[in-house]
């Protein structure tokens, strides 16, 4: 399931619901990404999506993960709009029978979200506001799966 949300979400409650719903999965991997304040330089992020197009592209990444690993279920929650420093921006949960698949798919989907997912990101500080692009490290991480 994919959820693009304009408001904060409760990561733990979502992970519990996902776990409950994923029946007999023995392994649930999850990742929570939070907006880093960068020592006070960043007050918030503004995240823009292209409605429907962004969801479709994320679904394609989920399909690719399903082709590659034996997954029981996948959940991606991503914030859009204004997200304050310290707040969760993304949650990826993957469920599988054994843990190797869940870990790999969660890692893979995060790399996708950080480089190819259709989001535009503005870092907003006290006196600054600039559109930012992925770090070099994000591209390197993503290249591991090719």
């Amino acid at each position: 399931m994919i959820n693009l949300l304009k408001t904060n979400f409760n990561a733990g409650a979502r992970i519990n619901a996902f776990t409950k719903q994923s029946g007999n999965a023995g392994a649930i991997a999850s990742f929570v990404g939070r907006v880093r304040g960068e020592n006070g330089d960043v007050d918030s992020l503004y995240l823009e999506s292209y409605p429907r197009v962004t969801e479709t592209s994320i679904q394609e990444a989920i399909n690719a993960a399903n082709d590659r690993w034996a997954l029981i279920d996948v959940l991606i929650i991503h914030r859009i709009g204004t997200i304050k420093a310290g707040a969760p921006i993304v949650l990826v949960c993957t469920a599988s029978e054994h843990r190797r698949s869940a870990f790999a798919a969660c890692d893979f989907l995060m790399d996708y979200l950080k480089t190819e997912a259709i989001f535009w990101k503005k870092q907003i500080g006290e006196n600054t506001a600039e559109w930012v692009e992925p770090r070099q490290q994000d591209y390197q991480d993503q290249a591991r799966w090719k």
Partner: protein
Amino acid sequence: MKIFYFGRLSDRVGMRQETLALPTNIETLFALKSWLNDKHDLGGALEETSIKSMINQNLVHGDAPLTGCIEIGFLPPVGGG
């Protein structure tokens, strides 16, 4: 026709979307980009090679006719989630 400007393009154009009736002589994507460039004084921002275009939410490579086009998106490089 609905036109979306994403990310830094929205700052450049000064709006995130607009709905326009195109002049009849604007029949292709490249012609539209050039017309919008003049209209909004964009200094070639839409024509940068890093800008991707989607017609009716489908990615277009190179030029393309605008027949049947109801929505265009101009996408600068994505920023990651």
